[in-house]
């Protein structure tokens, strides 16, 4: 089911990438996408499409992400280029609220790409995300930032 669902965006990507928007090419792309997804069908077997998808919130999430990414890169630049680096790094346990695999993964990846934080691991019980932070002086604030930022947005988008 989800295979069919995923094949559409892939086919669109195919059309874009090959630069020919003819229906033939779309059908061909769809076929190839289905073929590709068929190989990994097993991994999707026990999954269903997200119950709810809110396009607007997804866009918001994307926007937030791009902003944070740019910011993050800039911060790293500043940190790296500053003559005397003052760091208080550390690994922090973050208690997860999201439970879905997809959402946990999304959160972890977003965290990695945002300023000063980097996801190291998810605990076996999926309750804790271990985050490495460049500035670990105030763990509570850090946890709050994540919970109120990406985690909330993710739940809104794919709740």
């Amino acid at each position, binding site marked *: 089911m989800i295979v069919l669902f995923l094949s559409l965006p892939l086919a669109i990507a195919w059309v874009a990438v090959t630069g020919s928007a003819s229906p033939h090419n779309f059908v061909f792309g769809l076929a190839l996408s289905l*073929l*590709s997804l068929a190989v*990994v069908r097993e*991994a999707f077997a026990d999954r269903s499409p997200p119950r709810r998808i809110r396009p607007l919130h997804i866009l918001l999430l994307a926007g937030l992400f791009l902003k944070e990414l740019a910011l993050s890169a800039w911060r790293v630049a500043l940190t790296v280029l500053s003559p005397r680096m003052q760091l208080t790094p550390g690994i922090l346990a973050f208690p997860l609220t999201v439970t879905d*695999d997809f959402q946990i*993964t999304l959160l972890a990846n977003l965290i990695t790409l945002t300023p000063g934080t980097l*996801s190291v691991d*998810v605990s076996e019980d*999926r309750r804790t995300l271990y985050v490495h932070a460049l500035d670990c002086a105030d763990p509570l604030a850090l946890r709050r930032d994540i919970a109120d930022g990406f985690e909330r947005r993710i739940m809104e988008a794919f709740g």
Partner: protein
Amino acid sequence: MNTLIFRTVAPFITALMLLFSLFILLRGHNEPGGGFIGGLIAASALAIYGIAFGVEAVRRAIRFHPLAIAGFGLLLSCLAGLISIVFAVPFMTGLWVYPVLAGVEVPLSSVMLFDLGVYFVVLGAVASIALALEEREAD
């Protein structure tokens, strides 16, 4: 590598890479790419899938033994060359046909068939190597 994050992302990456490998395969005649690179990318995709889900999952995913796939590719390439025997032209002569499908002319050629064979050979052989090595790792 039994991590939730990796296992969640891996199928997407694999599917994307497979699609990309087909893209690279099909345009090789006009731009860099072709069967060999396409096959390598496809095999890399399977390797990622295998690292995430284990060798058995890959075996199930591709149904056939990777070496059988490689053999099929090799046979395909040979046959692509042998087609020309029918037309009394030398071995491996590039033969083109332009059938019209639903109003669009689709160029097909023995050369593409040959490149497809290359793709399967590389995919099969490299996947076989990767799986064999992975399997050894596991024990």
